[in-house]
């Protein structure tokens, strides 16, 4: 079976190379059939790669350890869900995921545009084929998912325990769908540049794909944050880690792109800016894929150094040089008429939003690569921490939220200050009221930045609500009917507009959660013996008793040993219990670690216990002090290390674990009260909903398209007649 998989990749590489060359040659020589065959080669590529993925997944499901990859990051004891998702925890597997997603995206977009943009599409096909060929060559020549083990081991390595979390297994495909999706608008932009068709055609054909990519990337980032909050035992969701930053950067430029293409569609301007933005977004996506795998920056996410550095850097360099050269060569074609009708217009707000987003991206880029930059400049490797990122990020985020409120309130082309003021009277009044209420009722004044963010969030919600109410009431006077019907009708008539507004509300709500939880978080790290308690923001948390389980991890990660605690929590007469725990995974080899010790010395992960709430979360994590078991472990290692006792080892480990429960030593606890943190996830949900509304095809769109095609054909026939 591995041979078939490898053959799929090889034939896939040939198909991708064929698609690239045939479509280029076909369009240059005017042989339409060649271009069509190139498109079909891309369909074939998608089929081949899907087959390759299926072969690999079957191997994972069957724990077929002749596949080196399966032996490396799965095992018979790995739960089925994690077996099936283990593919993308490895380098080779994630390359395959990239390639298969790219081939699916390409096939869909090429099929959708098969009767349109005959000039642009062949070049776009060539770009897509070229990118696919690059990833396929990486797999074939550097890191193959189909390597074979001559002597398959009886048991595999298992999946890295840190990754055993549902969010973590869905997170990579989401991120990758985002990264890969940006290839589509990039490919069409290149096609548009080469053919000098720099109007808005390429934008209209790929807008939907850009939005899909953007939504998936955003969703992936949210899942990553959620994983960090609920799996890594530190209680935060964002650490400005290089790999987190790498995923945020293309999302920021992608957000800028989604706004600035609207300006080009409407007004025909910002052409240079748009092609540059999408090229930057694509390069940042490649960089994001590369950073996770390269190990050039210290990150807890960098799962293993790899050999991919050089080819990846060469490819990224080639894309950068190629894009810059192409854009410079086409500058004369990209010129547009002077454009500023008025400084008060939606175009200007969009331009400002673009500048802020790109600036934020530049800041993050600088901070992320600062270790490399400083080493190059001063010879000393230095790094900047979260305070530095927050110093720049906080004011920029405030400006962004402010702009996301102003944007919907300003008209295209020319608005007047007086008109703007009329639109903003009610929202500004809402902000004033919010400010007064916050100052009187809450301690929000303790943190000026958070206070400002609360007010701006209120502003955005007020602006959008006002727009919805105005639109719906206008619709009601026209068509009659109830308020909900009018609202639904309004949104469905103009999904892009109102979907975008909903996204803005989502962003405001998300930042409300970010500001509140980071400014007003309360944290206590304590060491408690059973019976002792800690007070935190009105909560009284008491350590009732330790827990110790063998092969009975509640979150089903397959951990052999789970040590934990039962906490009794009391607040204002309400009582409940939380049970945080910690999973211990077995270390690799018995020789260097000790036959019994290895059960306690491997990786360990926190299973935090959270009381979720709309007002606040109570978050707890435990770190059992297994020092008390030290003596017992050492003794057991001396007596039972002989392979003769292999069968008894499980029993011995169980006895030692039981001793932990009986001795009940003090344990370390981290407790957090994060106000409004749930609104980060709710805001993310609203954001996604808005994106879905904007994406949903308008009723009758297919109809209209068909009619337009028909009309065009009739027109042709008539002109011939």
């Amino acid at each position, binding site marked *: 079976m591995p041979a078939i998989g490898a053959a799929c990749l090889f034939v896939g590489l040939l198909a991708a190379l064929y698609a690239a060359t045939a479509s280029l040659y076909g369009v240059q020589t005017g042989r339409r059939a060649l271009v069509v065959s190139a498109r079909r080669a891309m369909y074939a590529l998608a089929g081949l790669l899907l087959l390759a993925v299926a072969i690999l997944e079957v191997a994972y499901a069957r724990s077929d350890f002749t596949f080196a990859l399966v032996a490396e*990051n799965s095992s018979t004891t790995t739960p089925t869900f994690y077996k099936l998702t283990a593919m993308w925890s490895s380098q080779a597997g994630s390359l395959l995921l990239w390639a298969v997603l790219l081939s699916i995206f390409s096939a869909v977009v090429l099929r959708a545009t098969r009767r349109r943009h005959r000039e642009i599409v062949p070049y776009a096909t060539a770009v897509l084929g070229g990118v696919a060929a690059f990833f396929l060559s990486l797999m074939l020549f550097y890191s193959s998912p189909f390597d074979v083990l001559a002597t398959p081991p009886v048991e595999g*390595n*298992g*999946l*890295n*325990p840190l990754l055993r979390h549902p969010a973590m297994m869905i997170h990579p495909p989401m991120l990758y769908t985002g990264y890969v999706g940006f290839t589509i608008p990039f490919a069409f932009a290149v096609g548009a540049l080469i053919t000098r068709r720099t109007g808005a055609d390429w934008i209209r054909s790929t807008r939907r794909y850009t939005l899909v990519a953007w939504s998936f990337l955003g969703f992936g980032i949210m899942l990553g944050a959620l994983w960090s909050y609920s799996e*890594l*035992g*530190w209680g935060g969701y964002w650490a400005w880690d290089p790999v987190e930053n790498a995923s945020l950067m293309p999302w920021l430029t992608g957000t800028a792109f989604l706004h600035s293409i609207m300006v080009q569609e409407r007004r025909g301007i910002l052409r240079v800016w748009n092609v540059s933005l999408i090229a930057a977004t694509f390069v940042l996506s490649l960089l994001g894929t590369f950073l996770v795998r390269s*190990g050039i920056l*210290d990150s*807890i996410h960098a*799962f*293993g*150094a*790899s050999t991919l550095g050089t080819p990846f850097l060469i490819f990224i360099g080639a894309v950068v040089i190629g894009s810059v050269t192409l854009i410079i060569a086409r500058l004369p074609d990209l010129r547009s008429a002077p454009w500023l009708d008025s400084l008060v217009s939606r175009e200007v707000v969009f331009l400002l939003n673009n500048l802020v987003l790109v*600036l934020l991206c*530049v*800041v993050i880029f*600088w*901070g992320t690569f*600062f*270790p490399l930059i*400083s080493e190059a400049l001063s010879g*000393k*490797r*230095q*790094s*900047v*921490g979260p*305070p*530095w990122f927050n*110093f*720049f990020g906080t004011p920029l985020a405030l400006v962004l939220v402010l702009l996301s409120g102003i944007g919907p309130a300003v008209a295209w082309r020319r608005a007047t200050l007086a008109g703007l003021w009329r639109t903003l009277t009610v929202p500004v009044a809402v902000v004033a009221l919010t400010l007064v209420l916050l100052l009187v009722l809450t301690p929000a004044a303790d943190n000026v930045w958070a206070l400002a963010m609360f007010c701006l969030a209120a502003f955005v919600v007020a602006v959008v609500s006002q727009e919805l109410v105005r639109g719906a009431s206008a619709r009601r006077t026209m068509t009659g009917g109830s308020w909900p019907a009018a609202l639904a009708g309004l949104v469905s008539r103009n999904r892009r507009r109102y979907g975008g507004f909903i996204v803005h509300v989502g962003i405001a709500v998300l930042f409300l959660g970010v500001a509140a939880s980071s400014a007003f978080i309360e944290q206590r*790290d*304590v*060491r408690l013996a059973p019976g002792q308690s800690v007070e935190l923001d009105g909560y009284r948390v008491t350590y009732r008793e330790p827990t110790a389980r063998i092969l009975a991890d509640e979150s089903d990660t397959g951990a052999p040993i789970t040590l934990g605690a039962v906490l009794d929590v009391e607040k204002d007469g309400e009582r409940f219990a939380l049970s945080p725990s910690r999973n211990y995974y077995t*270390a*690799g080899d018995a020789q260097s670690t000790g036959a019994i010790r290895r059960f306690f*010395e*491997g*990786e*360990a992960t*926190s299973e935090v216990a959270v009381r979720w709430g709309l007002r606040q979360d109570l978050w707890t*994590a435990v*770190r059992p002090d297994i020092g008390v078991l030290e003596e017992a472990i050492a003794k057991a290692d001396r007596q039972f290390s002989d392979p003769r006792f292999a069968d008894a080892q499980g029993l011995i480990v169980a006895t030692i674990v039981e001793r932990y429960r009986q001795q009940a030593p003090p344990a*370390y606890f*981290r407790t957090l009260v994060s106000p409004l943190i749930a609104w980060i996830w709710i805001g993310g949900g609203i954001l996604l909903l808005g994106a879905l509304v904007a994406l949903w095809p308008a009723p009758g769109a297919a109809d209209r398209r068909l009619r337009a095609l028909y009309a065009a054909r009739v027109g042709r026939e008539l002109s011939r007649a």
Partner: protein
Amino acid sequence: MDPARKRRLRLFVALSTVVVLAGALVYTSFSAATQASTPSQVTAAAEPGRSYELTGKVVDGSVSARGDELRFAIRDRAGPQSVPVVYAGVVPDPFREGREVIVEGQMRQGTFVAERDSLVTKCPSKFTKETASTRG
């Protein structure tokens, strides 16, 4: 104002904004940066008030815990030169004498005062080919 002059002015404003922002980025990052260093480097020459990222091995027999506070010494990867460290916060499970660790903090009167929760243990992991860094 004639259009050419207006354009020049606009270009000038844009360029100076870019220069100011770039300057701010460079200046703040270099002054806020944490420098990677070894025990012998921080004992020899550490500026007071500056943050360092100290990498080295935990000296055998140096670890002692008092309440919430953990005291240990870190020595050079190859060499005996060591520096005492005071630390509070989450201790990663693989933290042990002889292991390689990274900790962030500042030198105060000959002792490296670490920032809360900054301790990271580097340990061999069967899940990664090189070494993995473990937090909390």
